[in-house]
């Protein structure tokens, strides 16, 4: 069990992110027991077989930075968890992928950031539509994670719109026109 942050609150979490080994076949790779987040390739290869698990909320799908979220467009109502992988925390493709899933495709289930997830990203990740943040195992002590929750409040009124608040500051609030 590891700890993740969901909707700003720390939770115990038992999902396993499945990563294929080099050369492993998505169609046949063995999946561990319990709740799993599988690579997109696995899902696309075994959609029929895995569909019921997804609908039951015990199977999610993760996307790599190179993968187009449109590949899941037909599955968004069935999937209760989609994750986006951050292979390095400075690899920012996941922000655009999350934005597209939420704002373009209307995905409403859990959207989880996995991989190299740092507290210094929490604010940006949340703004782009992630509601679940899973730092790499062991990255933070429970105490540090608790303190990390403060990062959500780094900026109270950001300028531009994003997934969490679609309207930019100039539409949210009446900023005074100078006399």
């Amino acid at each position, binding site marked *: 069990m590891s700890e993740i942050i969901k909707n700003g609150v720390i939770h115990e979490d038992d999902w396993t992110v499945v990563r294929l080994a080099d050369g492993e076949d998505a169609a046949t790779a063995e999946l561990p027991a319990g709740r799993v987040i599988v690579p997109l390739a696995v899902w696309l290869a075994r959609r029929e077989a895995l569909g019921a698990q997804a609908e039951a909320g015990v199977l999610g799908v993760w996307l790599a930075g190179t993968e187009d979220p449109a590949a899941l467009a037909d599955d968004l109502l069935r999937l209760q968890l989609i994750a986006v992988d951050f292979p390095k*925390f400075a690899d*920012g493709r996941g*922000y655009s992928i999350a934005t597209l899933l939420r704002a*373009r495709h209307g995905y409403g289930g859990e959207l989880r950031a996995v991989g190299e997830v740092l507290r210094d990203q929490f604010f*940006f990740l949340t703004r782009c539509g992630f509601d679940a943040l899973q730092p790499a195992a062991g990255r933070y002590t429970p105490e540090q994670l608790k303190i990390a929750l403060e990062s959500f409040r780094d900026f109270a*009124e950001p*300028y531009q719109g994003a997934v969490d608040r*679609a309207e930019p500051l100039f*539409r949210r609030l009446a900023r005074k026109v*100078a006399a």
Partner: protein
Amino acid sequence: MYQYDEYDQRIVDERVAQFRDQTQRYLAGELGEDEYRPLRLQNGLYIQRYAPMLRIAVPYGNLRAEQVRMLGHIARTYDRGYGHFTTRQNMQFNWPKLEDVPEILAQLATVQMHAIQTSGNCIRNVTSDPFAGVAADEEIDPRPWCEIVRQWSTFHPEFAFLPRKFKIAVNGAKEDRAVIQVHDIGLDLKRNAEGKIGFRVLVGGGLGRTPIIGEEISSFVPWQDILSYCEAILRVYNLNGRRDNAYKARIKILVKALGIDAFRSQVEAEFAHLKDGPATLTAEEVHRVADHFVDPSYETLPASDAGYTAQLAANKAFAAWARRNVRAHKQPGYASVVLSLKKPGIAPGDITADQLDSVAALADAFSFGEVRVTHEQNLVLADVRQSDLFAAWEGARKAGLATPNIGLLTDIIACPGGDFCALANAKSIPIANAIQARFDDLDYLHDIGEIEINISGCMNACGHHHVGHIGVLGVDKNGQEWYQVSIGGDQGNDTSLGKVIGPSFAADEMPDVVSSLVQTYTTNRHDDERFIDTVRRVGAEPFKTQVYADREERKQAHV
């Protein structure tokens, strides 16, 4: 000038708190070196040759006197008494202590300044025309649009970790003084046939290792859509830009790889989803921002001041300065003054704390308390009454800021090079100084006329050598510092990239090389023809031939 409201101020204050915490966690070992790096870079903090380097944002080059004084205070208190203005209109300090940076930022925040996004792989500080609002050839004032772009891009959550840095420049005059053709996005303000305001959008320009001139992606994006359009460009880039190789990660490489037409289709497809969405600008917001940039309370004055004319006739030194450093103004009886940071022997762009104070005082006395930073690393007092020019000159002279060389050969652009920069192949500053020393005769300098020399210490091109009429690039040959020379580069409407003239030179040859180039020019030029125009007319050949022939002759003379 733009004044923060409570929301702007709060964001900057929150940033100070956030960065203070990040730095504390780094110093406590809780945040690793690799983790801290991108965070500090997005706050303009490099680790350089001698010390950290802090780059402070001067959005589109606009400063108020109190801000200039604050920069002076920081130079004096936390640095070695001077700072450096860059080609991106920012200020750099070369010697701050890492532990002091949060406090420096806190002090900057008290005068509405910060170091947000002055480095790192995010949307950088937006740049523009230093004569915005006062230039006679201006069609639309770019400053409000710069400020709108600044706000939109500040902590944009989707674009904080791009494949590479991203630079946006805005121009609104007939003459492009923002070098928009060598930016990731260049925005050219214009009116369409119906008189509506919008932007011609260029994309994929940039210098560095692979210099490329931007291409037109749209001939007209209505102003309401400009943020959505930029968002579409950024999203396509964020998702598709290369991340495997830092040298190939800029948008220019993506645009070239796809071709502008395919790139445009992707952007248009993205934009179709965003158009008329919440990012669409409102007239209220544009007015709110534009109201910060109304003209100062100009007096009604005759087009030309009699006292000024008399002083010009009476004082040769003043006249020489006025000829180079004073620019025409849209408002009768006013002028813009360029304060030269190119005094021979000083690193181009360097300014001392005392000089910063003098600049603030001059701005308060003569220019409504405002100062601009130019891309050429000089400063501008934009709104000086002609009747005050003499007093402004005397003040500038006392401060060592009245070198009458704007646009001339000694007004050299140079990056900090090997004296400060850890990436350098060679020094830049001593080369600039040696050239300045060679051309110390003012009459000759004026006779040579407009010529731009740009020097970079390595191919990152911070000194914009590709777009210098004469470009000088520091290269490493077997561990020694050499200099490659190009000619024919230009910035502005006819932006072009210079061509290398041949094998590179040793440092001590550089003044001779420039002399040979100038010689060739003066023997070939037509009346009133600028260096660059002669190069364009006669081609590079005569220049090359002369430079290497002279070099051969010098060698013979030495044996």
